[in-house]
C-alpha cells in the first residue's frame, strides 16, 4: 500500500500556496505509506537552458561546496548551489549529460533524485509530516506537484528507493501498486543501454516511460504502452511541465480519486486526501476507470 497525490493548479493565484495545499494531502495519506515521502514540484520560473539537479547525500560528510566548484571547474560553466537540509540543488547551463556523468566521478556519495528546468524533487525516509517539514515544503510555490507516501513491499527503504522517480528531464512518476513482470522489462531496457539506480519496480516504469517518450511518443501514448507491457496492479500518476496524467491497471485494483474545480485538478489515493482543499464541495469528483488514460494539459 502507498499513497499518491497530484495537484495541477489552473488558477495562478493559488500558485504561491501549492506547498500549503499539497502537504496536508500527503500528511493524511501517511497511514498508507509511513516509511518514506517524496514530492516533485514544478515551478514557473523555468529557463530552458538552465538545468536544476536535485541531489541527495548518500551517507554523511558530503561537501556540497566542493562538489559544486568541482563541477564548475570540470565543465567550465558557473554552478549555483542551494543547500536544503542535508541535500542540495545545483543549477547550471552546462551540458546535462556531462553534469550527470561528472557528479558520480567527483563524489560517489552523491545521488541524483531528479533534474529538469522546471522540476525540483524532495524525497527522504520518514513520515510525510517530518519530510515535508525538513525540506520546508509547506512554504513552496509552483503550479504542479505530485507526491508519494511509501509503504515498501518489494525493495529497500532508502531515499533512493522512494518516490517520485524523476529519471528524465522534468518527467516525474509516482506509483501505488506492484508490477509483476518488471524484471523482464528491466532486462530488456538494460540491453538497450538504459541504466538503473535501484532495484525498485517503479523505477522500471519511470525509465520505460522515459524511453517511450524518447522514441517520440507523447505522455498519453507512453502510458498506453505501459498498459500493454506491464503486468500487475498499479495506479500511476505521471507529470511533465505541460501535462499530468493518471492511469490504472485493467482491474483498477489500486485506488484513485480525482477532483476538478475551476481552480485545480487534484488527485489522491483516497478522498480523505482531498477533503480539506478549497471549495472541494463544488468539485466534480470521479474515479478513473481501468485502462483509461486521463491527462490534463496546460
Amino acid at each position, binding site marked *: 500500500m502507498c499513497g499518491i497525490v497530484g495537484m495541477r493548479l489552473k488558477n495562478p493565484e493559488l500558485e504561491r500556496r501549492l506547498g500549503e495545499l499539497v502537504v496536508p494531502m500527503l500528511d*493524511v495519506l501517511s497511514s498508507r505509506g509511513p516509511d518514506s515521502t517524496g514530492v516533485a514540484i514544478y515551478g514557473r520560473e523555468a529557463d530552458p537552458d538552465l538545468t536544476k539537479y536535485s541531489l541527495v547525500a548518500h551517507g554523511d560528510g558530503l561537501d556540497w561546496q566542493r562538489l559544486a566548484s568541482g563541477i564548475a571547474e570540470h565543465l567550465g560553466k558557473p554552478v549555483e548551489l542551494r543547500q536544503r537540509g542535508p541535500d542540495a540543488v545545483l543549477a547550471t547551463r552546462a551540458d546535462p549529460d556531462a553534469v550527470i556523468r561528472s557528479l558520480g566521478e567527483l563524489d560517489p556519495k552523491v545521488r541524483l533524485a531528479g533534474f529538469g528546468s522546471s522540476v525540483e524533487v524532495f524525497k527522504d525516509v520518514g513520515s510525510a509530516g517530518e519530510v515535508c517539514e525538513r525540506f520546508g515544503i509547506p512554504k513552496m510555490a509552483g503550479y504542479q506537484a505530485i507526491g508519494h507516501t511509501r509503504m515498501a513491499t518489494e525493495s529497500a527503504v532508502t531515499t533512493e528507493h522512494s518516490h517520485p522517480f524523476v529519471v528524465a528531464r522534468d518527467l516525474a512518476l509516482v506509483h501505488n501498486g506492484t508490477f509483476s513482470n518488471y524484471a523482464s522489462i528491466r532486462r530488456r531496457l538494460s540491453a538497450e543501454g538504459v541504466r538503473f539506480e535501484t532495484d525498485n519496480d517503479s523505477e522500471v516504469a519511470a525509465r520505460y516511460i522515459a524511453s517511450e517518450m524518447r522514441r517520440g511518443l507523447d505522455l498519453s501514448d507512453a502510458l498506453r504502452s505501459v498498459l500493454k507491457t506491464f503486468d500487475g496492479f498499479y495506479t500511476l500518476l505521471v507529470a511533465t511541465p505541460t501535462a499530468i496524467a493518471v492511469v490504472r491497471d485493467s*482491474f*483498477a485494483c489500486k*485506488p484513485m*480519486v480525482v477532483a476538478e474545480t475551476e481552480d485545480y485538478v487534484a488527485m489522491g489515493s*483516497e*478522498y*480523505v*486526501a*482531498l*477533503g*480539506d482543499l478549497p471549495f472541494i464541495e463544488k468539485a466534480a*469528483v470521479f*474515479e478513473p*476507470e*481501468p485502462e483509461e488514460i486521463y491527462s490534463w494539459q496546460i
Partner: protein
Amino acid sequence: MADLTETVRELSCAELSVREINAALRELPDGTHVRIAEPRGHHNLAVGLRRRLDVTIAGNAGYFIGGLCDGPDITVEGFVGWSVGENLMSGTIRVRGNASECAAASAHGGLVVIEGDASSRVGISLKGGTVAVAGNVGHMSGFMAQAGIILVGGDAGESLGDSLYEAVIYVGGKIRSLGSDAKTEELTPEDVARLHRIVKVTGFSHISPGDVTKVVSAKHLYHFDALKDQKY
C-alpha cells in the same frame, strides 16, 4: 420515524477519534438517533454496531462505512470510499452520493442503497443482502456473488456477474458486457413483484420493475472443474 421531541446525539470527528466514535456508538441504547459530524473522509465509521440505532453521517466518508453491522440504519449525507457495508448482517445503509469500489462486498443481509453511482465490484461475493444503486455501476460488479440481489438503475460496466452463483442482478440501463458464466434470463412475475418492493423501499421510482434485464448464473462454472476450457 423519530419522535419530534427526541434529542439527536452528536459525535464529531473533529473532536473524537474514529475508535472513540465507534466505542461511543456501541454504548447507545436501541432507538437512539445520532449524528456524526465532520466525517471528512474518515474510514471505518459506524462499524460493528448491533443495536437499532439511527446514524447520520453528515458529509463524505471513507472506507468500510457501516461494515459488519447487524441492525442499525445508517445514512451518509455525501459519498463513501471503498467497501461501504462490507459484511453487513442486517440493517440499512443509505448513501446520498456516490460509492467507491466494492460496495456491500460479502454482505450477508440488510439493504445497501446508493443514490448516486457506484464504482467497480458492487456486491462482490454478496452472500445474501440487497444492494440497490440508482445510477451506474463499474466493472466486475456481482463478481462471485453467492446469494442476494443487486439492482442497478443505470448502466453496468464490463464483466457483470462474472462467476455468479445464486445471486440475481437486475439492470435498468445498458450492460457493457457480461462476465464469464453470466447469462440474461426472462423476468418472472416473482421478479417483478420483488422489484416493486425494492423500488418502494429505496424510492428509486425511475426504475420500472417490468423493464429491467435480469442476469443470473449460467452454471457452467458452478462447480469447479479444472478442465473447463480455461473459462475461469
